[in-house]
Structure formats: structure tokens, C-alpha cells
């Protein structure tokens, strides 16, 4: 199933021909005077490849103590993407040791989940990874439905795929935008958020909110797509590829961008697997591992798309993988629009979803039924399950335990950012201090997801 990652290929999309090997572009001008000793750093990064030891640094006695210092970065820092705190031990300009300190956004959501019914749980999980709220809802709903054993109608499944893939695009837009801003490409910030508004407007029209939607619920989705959704999505499909050309013009071959991202923050396949790193970071290292392909959910196997992979596992490859994934997501959305089935947007199983509105006017029982579902919630059979989906940051899992009552006994989220963040010391060890923000931004951690 899995192709062996090759070290020679550049970014490629599975199913296409592998491109020619391109030389590493060395940043700098022809004058030579402005080169900032890149070569040494590149050598260091190469040395770092393959090492699985985080703290392999032996204190060098020849280095003066004045050269060594511990710098605290965060938790209030503009480029730590929220409230991440890093303790960085520096030797001159070189980062020797890094310790991420997290928990500054711990919200106790797993505790709150135990006090909410299964139907209310969506409001809670959607606030975890706030850049990909619909993925959280989908994962939680799938876990609940697995315990319930209900069938989801095809239209609801198609709507779920449509919404989550749009969400993936908007999330990657923010990731690329903030990555650009952290390294100094401020225009990228403006571009990314400009296009994101387009998707958010559609979300607001469909779900009622720009973020934290609670739209995907156990049993289906909360409401059908609004009238004229085809035109809205068509506009998104038309304008975002055009805008992405701007990003490519701005960054793809920009020597400053290449200099700041090529060979920076390298992580190898072995390290990724050992530390539980998934998502674009793993794919940029060269493993075509995408849960949408390998363990498909919500009928995503019906749509054609490719898994985008990189080869070097550096910041630049992660950026390229995200850009490629946006194209693939738009491809999926295009197919969903073309093949959107008709029918119900939530399951007809009366155990889970309330009776239709007009039945409530006619029947007392239907009214009581409706009331009970929204006050007491539905009972979920006892059992425990783990469901994982491919969120924009990697494998998002939901471990759900029910004791047969209306509220979960335990709801645990396997947060992709949490595991990915563990790999930060490996990426940053023996790199330049200026590359710190590039590494953090390329991991794209969402602290709400890390701390929950």
C-alpha cells in the first residue's frame, strides 16, 4: 500500500510523474556579501537527520558560559500561535535544547463533555481545534454513531464531506498565512485571510456562525444546505484557485522564502512515526499516509483525490504540501457539488433524531418525543470506541466510552497538534534561533487543540 519514501523526489502528487530533482536553492545575492553563513546551518540540519535522540547535546567546556543562555519565549508572544511557551537553551545563535511548556489554554473540555449529553457534546468539541471546528464535530459524531449503530443518509454524508473539505481549505489558508507572516511575508497574511472570509461567509450562511458551528451532529447535520449553495460554492471554487496563484507568485520561488524555509526544521519519517506526528508534517517527510485514503470515513472513498507528499520534511515541504492539499480539497468539493444526492440531511432513526416539524403539530406523542430528545438526550449503548479522521493537522481521534446513559462516561480527544508539538525539540535542535518561529509556524499547532 505504501510506497517507500525516496529522498530524491521533490514535492509530487501521487499518481503523477515524479519531478526532476532540483538543487537546493541557496539564498542570497550574487554579490555574496549578504550571505548569512547558510552553509553551516544546512550541514547541521543534514547531520540532524536520522537522529532520534532529543537531548544528545554534550556541554562543550570550551564554550564560554556567557555564550550560553536560557531564553523564555511565550506564553504571550505574537508568533507562538497562541499561548505556547518555549524554554530555549541557546549557545550563541544556535538552539541547543528546547522544552515546550503547554497548558496555558487548558479548558477542561474533557470534563465538561461528561456533564453534557451526547447531543450537546458537539458544542463542546467544536471549540477544541478552533481552526477546524467541523472536523472535531465530525469525529465526535462518528464515534457516537459507531456506538449507536445508526445509518447516515447519503446526503448528510455528502454535506459532511463538503463542509469538512471547505474547512480544510480555510484552515490551511490560515496556516499558510501565519507561516508567511511569521517569516516576514506580511502580504501572505492579508491574502490568506482575504480568501478565508469567502469560505467563512458560506459557513455563516449554512450554520449560522463563522466558527464553532455545532453543525455536524450525531445522526446527520443540523440543517440542510441553504438555497443557492451551489452558486456560493461555485464562487469559492472559482476564486480560491485564482488567489492561490497569488500565493505561488509571492512565495514559491521567492529567494528569501526559500532561504528561510529550505533545510529548516527537518524531521525524518522515523522520527515522525516514533513521536506520533501525523498530517502534513508526516506527509512532507515522505509518507503518503492520509486517513481519507487508508481508513475512509463518511463516504469519502467515492471521490477522486491524491495524497500530496514531500520528500525532505522541512518547512518548505510542509508549506508545499498544504498548498497541494488545498487544491485536492477543492477537487473533492467540485465532485461533491456535482454528485450531491437528494434526500434527508439527518437519519430517520427516531431514537436519535426528533420527528419532523409538521408531525409535532399533529401528534402529542411527537411533541413529547421532540421534547425528550432535546432535554434528556438519547441513550447510547454501553461500549467504548476510537474513531479517527484526517483533520488539517493530522489524525484527530475521539475515544468515547458510554455506560448506557445519555451522557458519555469519558470523552477523550486525540489531538493532532498535541502529538505534533512533541516533535518541536527534534526539529529545532541545533538550528538557528531565527528558525524557531519558522518551525512553530510550519507545525501549525492550535493551542486549543493542544491543551483542550
Amino acid at each position: 500500500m505504501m510506497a517507500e519514501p525516496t529522498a530524491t523526489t521533490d514535492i509530487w502528487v501521487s499518481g503523477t510523474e515524479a519531478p526532476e530533482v532540483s538543487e537546493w536553492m541557496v539564498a542570497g545575492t550574487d554579490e555574496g556579501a549578504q550571505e548569512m553563513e547558510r552553509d553551516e546551518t544546512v550541514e547541521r540540519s543534514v547531520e540532524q537527520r536520522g537522529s532520534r535522540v532529543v537531548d544528545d547535546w554534550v556541554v562543550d567546556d570550551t564554550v564560554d558560559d556567557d555564550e550560553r543562555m536560557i531564553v523564555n519565549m511565550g506564553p504571550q508572544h505574537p508568533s507562538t500561535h497562541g499561548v505556547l511557551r518555549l524554554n530555549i537553551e541557546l549557545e550563541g545563535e544556535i538552539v541547543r535544547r528546547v522544552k515546550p511548556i503547554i497548558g496555558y489554554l487548558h479548558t477542561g473540555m474533557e470534563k465538561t463533555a461528561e456533564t453534557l449529553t451526547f447531543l450537546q457534546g458537539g458544542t463542546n468539541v467544536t471549540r477544541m481545534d478552533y481552526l477546524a471546528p467541523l472536523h472535531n464535530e465530525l469525529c465526535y459524531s462518528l464515534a457516537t454513531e459507531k456506538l449507536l449503530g445508526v445509518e447516515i443518509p447519503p446526503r448528510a454524508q455528502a454535506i459532511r464531506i463538503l463542509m469538512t473539505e471547505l474547512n480544510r481549505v480555510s484552515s490551511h489558508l490560515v496556516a499558510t498565512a501565519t507561516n508567511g507572516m511569521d517569516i516576514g511575508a506580511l502580504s501572505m497574511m492579508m491574502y490568506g485571510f482575504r480568501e478565508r472570509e469567502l469560505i467563512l461567509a458560506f459557513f455563516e450562511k449554512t450554520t449560522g456562525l463563522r466558527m464553532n458551528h455545532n453543525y455536524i451532529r450525531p445522526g446527520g447535520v443540523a440543517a440542510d444546505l441553504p438555497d443557492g449553495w451551489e452558486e456560493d460554492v461555485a464562487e469559492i471554487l472559482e476564486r480560491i484557485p485564482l488567489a492561490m496563484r497569488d500565493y505561488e507568485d509571492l512565495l514559491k520561488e521567492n529567494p528569501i522564502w526559500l532561504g528561510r524555509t529550505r533545510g529548516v526544521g527537518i524531521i525524518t519519517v522515523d522520527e515522525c512515526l516514533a513521536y506520533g506526528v501525523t498530517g502534513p508534517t508526516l506527509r512532507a517527510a515522505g509518507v503518503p499516509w492520509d486517513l481519507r485514503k487508508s481508513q475512509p470515513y463518511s463516504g469519502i472513498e467515492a471521490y477522486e483525490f491524491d495524497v500530496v507528499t514531500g520528500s525532505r520534511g522541512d518547512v518548505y515541504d510542509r508549506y508545499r504540501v498544504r498548498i497541494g492539499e488545498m487544491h485536492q480539497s477543492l477537487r473533492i468539493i467540485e465532485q461533491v457539488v456535482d454528485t450531491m444526492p437528494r434526500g434527508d440531511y439527518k437519519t430517520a432513526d427516531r431514537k436519535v433524531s426528533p420527528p419532523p416539524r409538521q408531525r409535532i403539530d399533529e401528534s402529542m406523542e411527537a411533541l413529547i418525543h421532540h421534547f425528550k430528545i432535546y432535554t434528556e438526550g438519547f441513550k447510547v449503548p454501553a461500549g467504548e470506541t476510537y474513531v479517527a479522521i484526517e483533520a488539517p493537522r493530522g489524525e484527530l481521534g475521539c475515544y468515547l466510552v458510554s455506560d448506557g446513559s445519555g451522557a458519555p462516561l469519558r470523552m477523550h480527544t486525540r489531538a493532532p497538534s498535541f502529538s505534533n508539538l512533541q516533535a518541536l525539540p527534534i526539529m529545532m535542535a541545533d538550528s538557528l534561533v531565527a528558525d524557531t518561529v519558522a518551525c512553530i509556524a510550519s507545525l501549525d499547532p492550535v493551542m486549543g487543540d493542544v491543551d483542550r
Partner: protein
Amino acid sequence: MSGDSSPGPPAAADEVLASLSEAVPSAEAGHSVGDHVIRVPAEDLARLAGAARDHGFEMCSDITVVDYLGKRRVRFEVVVNLLSVRHNRRLRILVPVPEGDPEVPSLVPVYPGANFLEREAYDMFGIRFAGHPDLTRILMPDDWMGHPLRRDFEVGAVPVQFKASPRVT
């Protein structure tokens, strides 16, 4: 609590389960709502994880704990989710842990990625992972008392004040 009536996963994966059970005789393989699970006593967890790693489960995707206070005789259950990228397969290890001595061996020597996950489990449930290099609180402040996700730890909700403040009598 496993749904034994549900259909099991494909047979090819069962061979791996059988092989693992052979390597660690105390392990008991089964199914839960269509997933593979293996129950193992705490003392054999590290050995089973090592064997699983040799069988191609190269990633430890998740470690968490469930508190079955008042529901089961053994209060805690440590849940380890393993993933094999090579074989596209998942495996869940369930380890019952008694309340009196909540200690299991650490998986960090086998899976370095278990580091943060075990620290979270320690922080939230007070399960000690023997042999962990840095078993400290990760999410809560260092001086926090108690383990918040235990069932007997209060949610900590404060009453919501909708109108005038309650009269002090």
C-alpha cells in the same frame, strides 16, 4: 464493556493478535465495536508494547485513562492506541489499574511519542508511569492539587449569577 456481539474485524489481522497473545501469554485478545482490543495486566504492558512494535505497530497514537468509579471493581483503565502505518491497522491495549497502586510501566522506551501522552494521563488521573523520564504536570499548574478528570473530582462550576447577588443571611 466490550460489545462482543458486533462483527469482528477481518481475519488477517487476527493472526497478528494471535501472535501477540503467544508472545505475551497473559494478554487476552478480543473485539470491541469492531475494533481490535487486547487486555493485559499492568506488569506485561511494556512487553506487549515491545512485541506490538516488532509486529509493525510503529506509532503510539494515543494514551488515555478511563475512570470507572463505582462501575467496575478495578477503578482505572489505561487505554493505549497503537497504529501501524505500514499495515494500515489499529490496535488498542486496555490495562486495568487498581486505585490503591495506580502504576503502570512507561512506554517511552518503546514509543518516544508516549512522553506527552503519559504526562497528560498522570496530570489528569494521577496514574504513575514507572520509568518515565519527566513525569510532571503538563496541563495544570505545577502547584495544582488533585487530578481533575477523576470522577470524584468536582467539575468546579460556580453558580451563575443571573440577577442580583444572592442575599447573605
